[in-house]
């Protein structure tokens, strides 16, 4: 019988689930896709771990967003653009 869930959390997520897990993590999944992904992940160690860590990484990417230094912002906002020759 085909086993659709993996109990051990080590290793890659289930191949057929990765697309749904990615969409769930980034918030682009619709209701049914999210339900399907989360239901599967609840019973699958690998996919559960994959989903948790992907959500965490995406959160870190957003947090890592830095504004330019104040002097750079000032030059750009004031229109002090130089020709990059």
């Amino acid at each position, binding site marked *: 019988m085909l086993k659709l869930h993996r109990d051990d959390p080590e290793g890659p997520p289930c191949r057929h689930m990765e697309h749904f897990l*990615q969409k769930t993590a980034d918030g*682009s999944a619709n209701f049914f896709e999210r339900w399907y992904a989360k239901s599967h992940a609840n019973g699958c160690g690998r996919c559960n771990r*994959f989903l948790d860590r992907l959500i965490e990484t995406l959160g870190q*990417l957003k947090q*890592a967003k830095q504004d*330019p230094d104040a002097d750079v912002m000032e030059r750009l906002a004031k229109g002090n*653009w130089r020709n*990059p020759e």
Partner: protein
Amino acid sequence: MAEIPVLYRVAKRIMRNDADAEDAVGQTLLAATKAWDAFDGRHCRSWLITILRNECAAIGRKRGSRPEITIEESAEPVAEDFWQAVEWSLVGDQLMAALDELPADYRLPIALCDIEELGYEEAAEALQIPVGTLKSRIFRGRKLLRARLISLQPN
């Protein structure tokens, strides 16, 4: 101008250094000012990012830099049997350094959608690619990013 920080961050992801990023944003603002009448009034950020990409390419040509090698969509998938080794404590500069190592085809979709939080349609318009292509590049880019993060882990 509210879009300057976004443009600067995207320029940094393209040029991967501060001076060139600043030059590219300056040239973008200049070009946008000249071309304002041609703007159709839809996604302003996408329009600016499209100009920015062209300006970055122009600066690259002036510098004599070679175009980046791109990875074919059909490239072999990254092995993923490394999850157990990942410590997700990498933040900030390390995360950005890992992102900057990705080919531009994957780096920019992630920068636009996962960092700048543009919608798929807006990002696809900025990169002038179909939405389906954008999504596949984001998904694959995240895989590559994870692989890069693994390589940064101490043994």
